[in-house]
């Protein structure tokens, strides 16, 4: 079957387009967005294809407007997605905090670019803290999925909607401008792959014989507010128990393990191949869920290896979660590039070699 056949599920697409098409196929009922590079293809694609689907697609006046439209639509029981990049995601933090508190499901895609500030439009992983530690005000978490291919850009949309609705919590797809822009072959999810369920809590109009529904994040009595907080924490604990996902390569005999997510994990794959050719036993652990973080698996591996090298396109953000998981079981090193720069497999290899040489020197 030709990859240009519009009817085929196998296509060559940009990551941003794959995300958009997968959202339609996953039964998205509303999308509210605002253009920002490097993810404007998402709303462009949705606007173009919208006539073929029963889905609201609206360009709002700002990211503040759009995230609050998401709030309203999600509160009315719709399956909703929104996407943006760093500066826009920062503006949305107000609405995301309110949604976490009001327990509204939605899918947020952050196609990261270099920052801080207006930054650059080149790829980055500088929003890791913002995504995994809450981002807005108050104690809350997002469930964060980090795709590493165009295939996963599509797959994680379906999974993201499913998890958002299971936990009544916003889910974030944390990816970057390179994955958003690059084209790869993928198999799209089938339309109707995620059936809609009734949301009894949604404000669709008070049932004549039932209780009215209120969507709110305001709990003035501290006792009640603490109760809500405890409920949220319980959900996050359940996520930690049930939703941790990761991928690993060649860890069984590894002396050094590379820990990287998203695009960087693919770069590290090449580093691993180069290192193995040189006789260095290198493996990879790639967290797929950034929250919940695969801490348990990392701790297991840390007691078996000489060192861990965390590689990120930032100044060392996931590094903190890696160190918390490793708890001193082995040395944890860091290699990072920032501001839109992408580390090459060779420079990661150099970092690996420096660790190995240092260890050899220490043993002498």
């Amino acid at each position: 079957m030709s990859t240009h056949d519009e009817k085929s599920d196998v296509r060559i697409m940009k990551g941003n387009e794959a995300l958009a098409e997968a959202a339609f196929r996953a039964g998205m009922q509303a999308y509210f967005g605002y253009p920002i590079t490097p993810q404007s293809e998402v709303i462009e694609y949705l606007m173009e294809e919208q006539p073929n689907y029963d889905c609201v697609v609206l360009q709002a006046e700002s990211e503040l407007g759009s995230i609050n439209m998401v709030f309203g639509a999600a509160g009315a029981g719709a399956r909703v997605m929104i996407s943006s990049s760093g500066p826009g995601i920062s503006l949305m933090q107000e609405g995301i905090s309110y949604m976490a508190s009001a327990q509204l499901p939605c899918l947020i895609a952050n196609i990261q670019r270099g920052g801080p500030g207006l930054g650059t439009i080149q790829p980055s992983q500088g929003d890791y803290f913002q995504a995994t530690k809450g981002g807005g005000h108050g104690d809350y978490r997002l469930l964060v999925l980090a795709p590493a291919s165009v295939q996963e850009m599509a797959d994680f949309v379906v999974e993201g909607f499913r998890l958002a609705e299971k936990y009544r919590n916003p889910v974030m797809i944390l990816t970057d401008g390179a994955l958003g822009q690059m084209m790869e072959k993928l198999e799209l999810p089938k339309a109707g792959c995620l059936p809609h369920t009734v949301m009894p809590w949604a404000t669709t109009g008070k049932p004549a014989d039932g209780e009215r529904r209120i969507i709110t994040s305001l709990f003035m009595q501290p006792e009640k507010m603490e109760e809500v907080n405890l409920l949220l924490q319980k959900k996050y604990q359940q996520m930690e128990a049930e939703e941790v996902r990761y991928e690993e390569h060649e860890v069984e005999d590894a002396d050094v393990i590379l820990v990287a997510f998203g695009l960087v994990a693919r770069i590290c794959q090449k580093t691993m191949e180069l290192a193995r050719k040189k006789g260095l036993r290198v493996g990879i652990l790639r967290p797929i869920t950034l929250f919940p973080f695969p801490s348990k698996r990392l701790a297991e591996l840390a007691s078996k290896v000489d060192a861990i090298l965390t590689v990120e396109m930032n100044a060392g953000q996931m590094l903190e979660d890696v160190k918390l998981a490793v708890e001193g079981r082995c040395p944890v090193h860091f290699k990072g590039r920032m501001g839109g720069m992408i580390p090459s497999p060779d420079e990661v290899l150099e970092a690996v070699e420096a660790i190995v040489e240092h260890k050899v020197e220490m043993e002498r």
Partner: protein
Amino acid sequence: MDIPPLTNGFEIVYKKPQTLTETPMHYCPGCGHGVVHRVLMEVVDEMGIQDKTIGVAPVGCSVFAYDYMNIDMQEAAHGRASAVATGIKRVLPDRFVFSYQGDGDLAAIGTAETIHVVNRGENILMVFINNAVYGMTGGQMAPTTLDGMKTTTSPFGRDPKSAGHPLKITNLIAQLPGAYYVTRQAAHTAASVRKLKKAVQAAFQYQKLNKGTCFIEVVSNCPSGWKMTPAESNKWLEENMFPIFPLGDLKTPAQTMN
């Protein structure tokens, strides 16, 4: 509260609409919010649309509006009620959706949302309570505070050279093609309440007909924020607020057609 019925042997001709809950309102004596809540819910009752109406509460004194209106409701972030209402209406186009916002909410922090919701002609009702002061936070200057008016953040009176003049956002709204019906009403006398109710009835009818945004400003009082008795505040409302915010229709369907 247990209040013994006083109606034995009498016919009840005026009672609480069933779309208001039993929860006693927290509003200060003389405040207009309770009256406007009641007018809205009377219309919902009379149209028989309790099961089809979704309200959006703001941040401000009426933040607990959902405690009093016996319908499905959402509580929005400060200034975002009309964006939240847009989200609801877009996915449930056959429901009646309204936002209820104060002056700080609608005309300061939420100005962008307000203008663009109306400019898109979202088919909702926006109720705008203008009492020229931030009530809930304790009487600070609002975008609609009058020139020279004293508040806790304009202790020597609003100085237009520094703070600008009161923002007549309803006049701006009326210029937008998406606005179908824009009116400025009051709720401090029996006559004004009757006029307000007519405006609300019209707005819900227009929404049923998918006409576009209906916008009702209620020029109201804030006895606590203004540091007056309820009677004094109503007098002050008429003498000081109405000249700056004159009552009446700013845009009627006939004008929209032209």
